[in-house]
């Protein structure tokens, strides 16, 4: 974390961003998926700044995190393709 004195603002922005992303992805389907996405995004958004604050070597960590994100996206697309979408 580069700005340690703005911890509160960063947490708020991150939680709101998580809620927005979860609600957007959930709203693709129906109201109940939107609720699930919203609450999961909120929890992850509140936890992520803590992870960012505790990391001491941001470069390698970020690279591996990006790899995980792309792995998840690949599995998601494979699942969509297999189900005939």
């Amino acid at each position, binding site marked *: 974390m580069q700005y340690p*004195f703005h911890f509160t603002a960063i947490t708020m922005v991150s939680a709101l961003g998580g809620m927005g992303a979860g609600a957007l992805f959930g709203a693709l389907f129906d109201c109940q998926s939107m*609720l*699930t996405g*919203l*609450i999961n995004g*909120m929890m992850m958004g*509140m936890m992520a700044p803590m992870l960012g*604050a505790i990391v001491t070597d941001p470069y390698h960590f970020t690279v591996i995190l990006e790899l995980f994100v792309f792995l998840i996206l690949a599995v998601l697309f494979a699942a969509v393709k297999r189900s005939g979408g």
Partner: protein
Amino acid sequence: MLGIVGLLIWNVAAACFCYFRLRRRKHLFDGRHAATIASTATLGVTLILGMHVTVLLSAGLSLVFLVNLLLGAAVGTLFGGLFNYHLLLAGLYNGLVGISMGIMIGEVLKNPQICSIPISDHTQLLLNMYQLCGFATLLLTVVVGLVLNSIKA
């Protein structure tokens, strides 16, 4: 600290309101809707309650964990037990996960040094607590509103 007690009371009132509203209409849902509502309400309520209770308790870490895990299990059992035994299991799991996350947030708010955040000024610490607790209360109010709105639709 008095303001945080007020926020905690508001949150408990919102959770009770949500619980009794759901209990009055519990026969209206099918299985999937009930599962969504049980996990969402449990996760939100326990996350926010755990954060507030941890900020307010100044005891040792193990006592804080004990009290909070019991609270999370109770809330999860209440919300999941509205419907059936499968959802009681889901509610229990979600309650324990949510309250552990809440304990982490609360501990970091009480002592930012454990996340290597260099804030040691007492007033700034208190200001941080008030801002994040107020924000979390706002979020819980929004979530409870959405849950109650989704059973109406």
